[in-house]
């Protein structure tokens, strides 16, 4: 087990270094964007005196490295800084945006796992037959549709034409759970592409595993079919799927901007988009830390799961 422990430690250290690199890169890139927060805030009234005054009020007249240092100094105390635009703490921005994002992600994953694995196994079991062909072609077709197009289509048909569901979650704010009907369409859109890729991965892995020599050997020993399928073949098929799932969760937790904008859900993606448009560097930085840490932890988790499921494959640290 010590091998696993040192593997985790190495990965966490590497992850921390990666997060720092991401933060530095994001800071540099935000600085490189044309205009700063003062310019963005002045909008169509770029009176030079006013821009200068805003710049001074925001301490933007200090050199970039000093602003970065000031911001980084707060990090060890869990202080992510304050927004340039509103003066509110960045942690509040993240907390407010995280709740809707987390809710959507949790619902999506809760449906994604059973549906994705179920359909994948089903297709593999009926390889080449009608069920498989149906599942494979539908998933391929749906996968090809981008989120915004699917979203608009679903809203137009299910919400506007038929009136079955509310078209947006506008005005529900943080109380999304109080309006479950408003969550149906966003979750459907979020689910669409990940389900397809997961189904196809599970199907392929399962078919590979079922055709492998060790399964043939087990079959010769007279292992029951169900046990063969779910205890021997499936875990091997799951290893690549677990990594795909981790990537999907990461994507969901970073706030899917298209879905948030279309359905008016004020999650992290919206916070990020606004912060970039306003050149609100501390908020962008805070989000970069959160997203970086999330990615590291999720990938590590996925690798550990894969290691557990298929120890033979090994994991490159």
């Amino acid at each position: 087990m010590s091998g696993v422990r040192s593997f985790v430690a190495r990965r966490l250290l590497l992850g921390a270094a990666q997060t720092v690199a991401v933060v530095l890169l994001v800071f540099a890139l935000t600085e490189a964007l044309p205009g700063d927060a003062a310019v963005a805030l002045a909008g169509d009234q770029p009176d030079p005196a006013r821009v200068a005054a805003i710049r001074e009020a925001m301490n933007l007249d200090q050199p970039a490295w000093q602003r970065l240092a000031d911001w980084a100094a707060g990090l060890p105390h869990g202080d992510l800084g304050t927004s340039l635009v509103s003066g509110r703490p960045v942690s509040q921005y993240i907390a407010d945006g995280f709740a809707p994002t987390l809710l959507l992600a949790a619902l999506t994953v809760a449906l994604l796992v059973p549906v994705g694995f179920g359909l994948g196994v089903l297709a593999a079991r009926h390889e080449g037959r009608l069920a498989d062909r149906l599942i494979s072609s539908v998933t391929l077709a749906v996968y090809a549709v981008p989120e915004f197009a699917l979203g608009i289509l679903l809203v137009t048909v299910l919400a506007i034409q038929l009136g079955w569901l509310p078209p947006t979650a506008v005005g529900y704010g943080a109380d999304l759970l109080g309006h479950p009907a408003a969550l149906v369409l966003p979750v459907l859109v979020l689910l669409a592409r990940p389900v397809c890729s997961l189904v196809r991965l599970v199907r392929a892995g399962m078919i590979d595993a079922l055709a492998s020599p060790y399964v043939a050997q087990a079959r010769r020993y007279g292992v029951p079919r169900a046990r063969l399928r779910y205890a021997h073949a499936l875990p091997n098929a799951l290893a690549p799927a677990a990594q795909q799932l981790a990537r999907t969760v990461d994507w969901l937790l970073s706030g899917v901007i298209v879905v948030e904008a279309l359905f008016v859900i004020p999650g992290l993606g919206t916070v990020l988009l606004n912060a970039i448009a306003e050149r609100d560097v501390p908020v962008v930085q805070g989000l970069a830390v959160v997203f970086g840490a999330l990615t590291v932890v999720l990938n590590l988790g996925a690798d550990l799961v894969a290691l557990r499921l298929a120890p033979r494959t090994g994991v490159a640290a």
Partner: protein
Amino acid sequence: MHDESPRQLPSQDRFPGLRRRGFLAATGAASLGAIALTGCGGPDSGDSKGDGTPKRGGRLRAAFAGGGAGETLDPHLSNLFADVARAKALFDKLADYGPDLSARPRLAEKWEPNKSLDRWKVTLRKATFHDGKPVTAKDVLYSYRRITDPDKAFRAKASLEPVDLDASRATGERSIEFVLKRPTAEFPNVLAAFGAYIVPENASDFDKKPIGSGPFRFVSFTPGRSAVFRRNDDYWDGAPHLEELEFVIANEESARVNALLGGQVEYAHELNPTTARAHENKGRIDIVRLPNSAMQAFCMKTDRPPFDDKRVREAFFLIADRKELIDGALSGAGEIGNDLFGKGYEYYADALPQREQDLDKARALLKKADAERLKVTLDTSAVAAGFTEAASIFRDQAKKAGVTIEVKKGSKDSYWNDILDSGTLCCYRSGAMPIETHISQRLLTDSTTNATKWRHKDFDALYQQAQSTRDKTERAAVYARMQRRLYSEGGFLVWGFADWIIGTLPRVKGVETKAPANTLDWARFDKVWLG
């Protein structure tokens, strides 16, 4: 449940309009348009949606594009349309703009200049803040001093620049003497300036429980999501019909339309012309077009080649096919322009002949200016609807006159700052403001946002002359002279005025249809009711 006091209706809703009509006539500042201001469905109202008697009660949800988690209710920080709509529900200004952008009294009951127009006596009407305290001269002076604080960068600071606030003083509980740095005949425009709201003395935190004197009281606010306000029964201009008003934020136009179609909101601000066309007269939603709301122009820098030659500028005026630009860039939702700002506004020079495309003459002018086979870069950006479309349409029009235009698309976050000093030709847009304000902010030597680099001492002198002219007809004559000059050789190629498009559910009544965006009756929810 809100119908318990129907007796109140006639007196509360009919008479403010009548009072105001009487009042404006008395001060001599009346124009007939003022009668339509209250939008309560009188026979002479220009309001097509104002059918029937106003009904009391109900909650109206209005969807706006917003500023995300950084939003604030500080009225002096108003920047976006959503900010202004919320600010005007909670607060009042001393004056506000009528449909022709002339200043109308609001918290100010009347104003009276001295002979030399550099001292103005302003008398406040009897009004109270939401906490029951009266609105006094001290509150006004505090508000204006807060806006002009040198350490802050409030938007209205530039507009209040003519006022010497150290010398200005309260002369009574409800009277103020404003001392100005120079004669300012259009001082009421200053009182109506964007963001010049009156807040209670010493107020500085507006996100917890802001107190104003406006038609609605604060209930709750979540930045970037929603703001809920309730009717102020003691409002000096008559209590609103609505019981509650909620502003919700939806940044995508498609989301605002969908929310409206799905009945999740009753009012959606800022729709696209294509959306409007798709849903107009289909019965599901009503489309309101507010005309003359956004000037659309190309802006030529008059201090550098090739536009330092006025023949080149005139050639460009003649290259533009304005109808094609309106149809192509604005999907037909607008009116053509005549190279002057402020069509339909007070002092607009509407007697000048409408300029038409004349490619032969344009070519001849370019030849005279030694600018045949001219190559120009046109800066544009997706910062405003129709900008990039207008740029490519104009590029094709210029080609016919032998001018090669290269369209350069820039960042939309810093566009306005980028085009202020650099480049030679760019897409430009402006919201509604009085013609005088347009001139003072953009066309004087020391103007802060002079994007055409129009700097002429004699033009500055004409502006000063207008500001020192007490008689309105004489002043109008000076404005006409200035506009003739701009028409013949200015730097703004004003090709159109876009409609501002709003969608409402059919049961929303009393929405004013003549008020350009940013004027008093735009997004004015105290005169709206649910049928």
